[in-house]
């Protein structure tokens, strides 16, 4: 934990992100009348302003964990604390970015980004901020375009802007780059790191991509198959900006794949 804080990039503002504390959380869905456990006694905590990745087999309950943190679902057992407070209703300070861009197709790019301010009745006052965020994600000139006119990468940028405009203190990323082509994906990874370093928010990323997890985050938490338990925690002790060819990343990758039971493929 201390190590993660020390790795905080110096140029970031005083850490404004939320800390997370997950205590013995278990969660079950009811499927065809039978309970289906998805999380089993999961517990970990995350430093304010850090970047943490969660990896594990698909369907293991990582996304459920993000929904619990966002306040969209509530755990069957255990406690989910954000900023030392139990998570209640969804709140714009904790924003979930979905796997697909899930933009509202009837709204232009700007209106999609303005969704949060509009929902809270501050769209007029936040006008300049909205335009600024659209510039930040490199979409100026596309304000009046509709989602069906955008490429996958641009759409995902809009959904990132839609989250960032609310100045979240916790950004929950549910495979946000999962549906992008590999080149766009690499570019967006760099942008994610840049945004995180600039804003000082806490980022929690769910991904299937081991390299992505290692390249982006300070700590990788490896989950086992459903019902999910934590199998291992890998500290990525590398400064930013990182280089993809770094031999240390390759080492960590082998370690992570080993925890996932895929060591043979190496």
């Amino acid at each position: 934990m201390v190590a993660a804080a020390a790795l905080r990039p110096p140029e970031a503002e005083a850490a404004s992100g939320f800390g997370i504390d997950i205590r013995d959380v278990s969660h079950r869905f009811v499927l065809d009348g039978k309970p289906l456990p998805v999380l089993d006694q999961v517990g970990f905590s995350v430093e304010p302003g850090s970047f943490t990745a969660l990896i594990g087999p698909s369907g293991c309950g990582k996304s459920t964990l993000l929904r619990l943190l966002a306040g969209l679902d509530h755990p069957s057992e255990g406690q989910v604390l954000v900023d030392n407070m139990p998570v209640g209703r969804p709140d714009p300070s904790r924003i979930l970015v979905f796997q697909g861009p899930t933009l509202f197709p009837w709204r232009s790019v700007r209106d999609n980004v303005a969704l949060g301010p509009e929902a809270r009745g501050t769209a007029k006052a936040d006008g300049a901020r909205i335009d600024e965020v659209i510039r930040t994600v490199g979409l100026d000139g596309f304000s009046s375009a509709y989602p069906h006119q955008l490429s996958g990468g641009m759409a995902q940028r809009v959904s990132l802007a839609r989250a960032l405009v609310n100045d979240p203190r916790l950004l929950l990323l549910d495979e946000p780059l999962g549906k992008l082509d590999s080149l766009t994906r690499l570019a967006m990874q760099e942008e994610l790191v840049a945004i995180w370093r600039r804003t000082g928010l806490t980022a929690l990323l769910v991904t299937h991509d081991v390299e992505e997890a290692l390249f982006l985050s300070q700590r990788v938490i490896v989950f086992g198959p459903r019902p999910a338990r934590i199998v291992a925690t890998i500290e990525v002790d590398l400064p930013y900006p990182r280089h993809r060819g770094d031999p240390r990343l390759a080492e960590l990758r082998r370690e992570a794949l080993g925890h996932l039971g895929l060591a043979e493929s190496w």
Partner: protein
Amino acid sequence: MSGAGSAFEREGTTSGIRWSFASWWGTGLVGGAVWLAVAAVTVLWREVIPLPYGDVFAWICAAVAAVLFLGAITGAPGRIGRRLRNAGPWAIALGLFLGLWEIVTAKTGRLPLPFFPSPQALVEVYVDDWPRLLDSLGASGWLLVRGFFFGALAGFSIGLAMGWWRRAGYWIHPVLRLIGPVPATAWLPIIFFVFPTSASASVFVIALASAFPVAVLTWSGIASVNRDYYDIARTLGASERFLILKVAVPAALPHLFVGLFMGLGSSFAVLVVAEMLGVKSGLGWYLSWAQGWGAYANLYAALLVMALACSTLITVLFRVRDRLLSWQKGMVRW
């Protein structure tokens, strides 16, 4: 489309100066000839039974021919010209149809009267009876507007309530399943008993007919909204009001419009029946009146007006949809 159109315009303006024969619009030439021929046949060929208004019909045909010739010579430039070009093949077909109609009715009497009146008989109706037709059109339009407005509003509210509140769905769904498929006209005896005036009863029948498809499609539209949209809006701080008005309703709008089109269609169907009972004006009333007198020319004239009015209303609804749903790609156009 627009690229080709602008090429036409450029060609049109340059050719306007040089008057080269190549820039003439051939289809327009043929169309003009056909319409002129119809006019000639009407005037020159003796009728089996002499009819008035043959000359008016001939003048109308000549005027259409003149427009087509003008388009043919100038090469039909500009926006109006483009529309004229687009209508060209239809102008030929329509001219041929009118000519044939003229010949088999007025000129040779091949088709039996009074069931098949000649074109000039229709012209006669429009010239002599236009005040009553206009009045009927107005009455029908006003009836339809009120009925459809209240029906669409009720259908939308019912569909929204069913889609949004589980409890509303529980109570409304069986009622809708039971009442919905019954033709609105089947309720007429009860409706005329319950409502104080036949005018209000007619409005209600039309509202009933249009409400059902609007309700069902609004409901299915709301029910099929991507759940993620709600989650996103909720995390961004949306209230329930915002979720309904800014998420559920816009997302369901494409479905809603399908419902409105279906509702408008069934309201046309009910309109005639609603007007045949009780009221003393309107196109439906005019139709049954004309039929009662065996005035088939009036019948066809009113049918034509009705067809044009219905198609205009559908066009208007499509325009509204195109504006509201301009964000959709691959839309069906009218």
